[in-house]
């Protein structure tokens, strides 16, 4: 078996006697998108927090490029190339796009203590990097707070890519967006994968996951409901599995009846 960029086997996490995550396995390849699907409370957040170094797993193995990993802080994960883009995006709304893009890692000129930000190249790089992702920002001086949700996601993704992420974790990037904006963000996800990153895309929307995903991990109540390559599963099955199969069928029947009565 070829070596994966990231490989997880039987990862478990316990909070006291609560099993937050029980025996979950999946893999991420460079240039591919692994989708993690699950309803609310399925254990998605716990899963990404382990990957991003916020929590540590209690059982199982976590291999990054073949090495066993156990991160003590998000900084360590970041140093190894695992970047997480959370829903709140880690952005300062009143600051401009380029300042947000380089926040914490500003390029400088001059010698300490007389060093200053190389604004020209920072603006240029920010604009170019976003253009490479297919994102065209009109004005890098624009405050991030005035961008739309999709545009903000794009800044966060482009930033993670530029600063050398190998694995990009996206936590529900489309959940707060409209149909059009979601489509835009999905395109960035594909774009990021094309550039050779392994992308972990967390969502509760199979319609968003199926078109972009190469591998699907379905979680329900902390348990893995399956780990499939794209050719092993169709979109309908994915939706079924995710919502717990039988329950959804039941719901469809009930809805159909209710609407029938309404006529």
């Amino acid at each position, binding site marked *: 078996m070829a070596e994966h960029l990231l490989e997880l086997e039987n990862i478990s996490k316990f909070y006291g006697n609560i099993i937050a995550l029980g025996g979950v396995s999946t893999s991420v390849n460079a240039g591919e998108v692994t989708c993690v699907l699950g309803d609310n409370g399925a254990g998605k957040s716990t899963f990404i927090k382990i990957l991003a170094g916020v929590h540590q797993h209690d059982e199982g193995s976590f291999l990054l490029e073949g090495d066993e990993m156990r991160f003590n802080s998000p*900084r360590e994960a970041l140093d190894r190339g695992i970047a997480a883009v959370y829903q709140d995006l880690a952005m300062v*709304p009143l*600051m401009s796009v380029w300042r947000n893009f380089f*926040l914490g890692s500003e390029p*400088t000129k001059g010698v300490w203590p007389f060093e200053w930000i190389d604004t020209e190249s920072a603006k240029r790089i920010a604009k170019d990097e976003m*253009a490479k992702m297919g994102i065209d920002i009109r004005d890098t001086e624009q405050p991030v707070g005035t961008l739309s949700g999709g*545009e903000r996601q*794009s800044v966060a993704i482009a930033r993670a890519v530029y600063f050398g992420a190998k694995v990009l974790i996206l936590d529900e990037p489309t959940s707060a967006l409209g149909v059009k*904006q979601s489509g835009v963000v999905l395109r960035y996800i594909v774009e990021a994968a094309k550039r050779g990153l392994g992308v972990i895309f967390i969502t509760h929307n199979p319609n968003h996951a199926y078109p972009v995903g190469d591998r699907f991990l379905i979680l329900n109540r902390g348990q893995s409901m399956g780990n499939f390559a794209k050719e092993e599963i169709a979109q309908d099955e994915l939706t079924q599995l995710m919502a717990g199969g039988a329950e959804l069928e039941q719901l469809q029947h009930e809805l159909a009846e209710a609407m029938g009565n309404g006529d």
Partner: protein
Amino acid sequence: MSETDTAEPAVASGSAAGAMAAAVGDERLAYRSIFQRLFIRPEIGAVIGVIGVWSFFWAVSLNFGTTGQTQNWLDTAATLGIMAVAVSMLMIGGEFDLSSGANTGAMGILFILLIKEVGDLGGLGLSIWIAVPLSFVVAMAIGFFNGWMVERTALPSFIVTLATFFILRGLKLGLAKLLTGQISVTFTNDAHGYDFFRPIFAGEWQRNEHIWNGRDVFYIAFLLIGAAIVALAVCEMHFVRRAQKVVAGLPIFALGAAGVGVGVYVMHATDGVVNNTIAAAIHGVSILVGLYGFALWRFEPLTEAGGLRLDRRITLLLGAGLACVAAASVASFAIDSANDDTLFFPFTVQGLRVVLMMLFAGAGFTALMVAANRALRDNATTKLVVSTITAGAIVAFGFVIRASSEAVKFRTELFSVLLLVGLALFAWSVLGLRFAERRRIDADADRAGVIGLIVGLALLLTAVILRHLFVTEDELLANVNPAKFSVRMLWFFGFTAVMVWILGRTKFGSWTFAVGGNKEAARQVGVPAARTKTQLFMIVSGAAWLVGMLLAFRLNSLQAGAGDGEEFEYIIAAVVGGTMLTGGYGTALGAAFGAAIMAMSLVGIQAARWNTDWRFVFLGVILLLAVIANRAIRDRAEAARR
């Protein structure tokens, strides 16, 4: 022109690849003219405030514009401004420092106690060479303590620094009384190192000792050249550059420049009011010719000017504006300008007249400007007509002021300023009729324009500084009041410049905005939030140390209560200057302007011979107006960026 900004959200339009190709000179960016760009800067409210407050007190008082009074308010602004700039940075970083006021006095008193001669009731008798760095170290320690406590306890800085305030206040009084037995501490010129440090912290420039008879030649020259460069730079940023330059424009430009020279000569040779009108006419025509030549040489002509269209709104605004200006003129004639009596507390008759005139004229010209702005959206011809009416009203008002005023400053200075403004407006709309306004971004032209603006403004500033720093023999013979500029102004300007640079151009500046705007986000991307905030507290404490030195060397003595309670003035100055109370937004330059506004108000109220008990009412009104104006500017700025 925000309604033209209907560009689609960037990411939604076009294919990704197509968007990539169009990375240069983005066509979906609605073009903002130079005036619109200036108007959304966060400092603009404070700049307008500085001009407004200065004009107000210049008009209502006898001597506010003189060198003596200028030195007076700059002196107050210096110490207030140093603190306001530092405090505004801390506020941008999302924290307050209520101990900053008491800290200034504490540093001064600590310093004096360190160097005061040894005795039963005395100090430690250290050399100033040791006391200066030692007190600085203590200041850093106080700042560090504030920051460390705020970070460690996660309590609001409001509470933590309130505690520091009381501790410092108690220490000042307690130590002063314990060591010297008095509530005011003093030191003598004999302290070791005094002769070296005194000029650094309290050096003075006696204006009346610096005579320069050629001053006014340079003053006028710098003023004219500076204004010309500013005008050309504004044109450069406003009109479309020509691909093929028209050389015929250059001789016309030279002719205009020569005409201005002739005008200066006429003004110099004939020094009467009547002849000044002739000089003004020569100037006016020459400036028009010169600008026209320059524009002909560089800019694309306007092909379609359009016909005159006055809609109802514009007509109404024009009517209202002219009526207001007429009312101002009536007020100007009806109320005796020489009457300096108190009309009703706290106003003088003269004050009432000026207030009425300023109110009516302000409202009138605002209406006229709005009309001109609306006309601009229609076409160039309409704008020319409306602007010409506005310019005419301004010039006419100038003549009214000249005819109805006794004071020289109104008869000549204000008169010529109004003539110039009317002329500039007229020239501007004539150019607008003949040449095409730029609607696209041209980075080269903008860069050239910004350089021109900076050079021009620097020349104007130099002109004003020269005029204030030197006297002519004639002025001395006329017994001009002495004025002494303190070196503390240089500290103020230097400190402001350094902080503006730090805030705008360095990592630390970026991090300051970040920790004030969204601390968690900043921390997530690796900004050392706690360290940044602690350093901000140390900057404020360092500024307090500097002000403490300036205070101590000024009189060689300090009261134990020095600086107590002034922290709110710093915060007010910062807020007036456009800093947001909730953090994450503001500028250091704005805070400096805010300090200038407050200092001018305090000094101006005295100069206007109003009852100074009322000064806090004035400050309160200014604060309220400033906050409302700044909110409006910020909203506008964000809307314009959308």
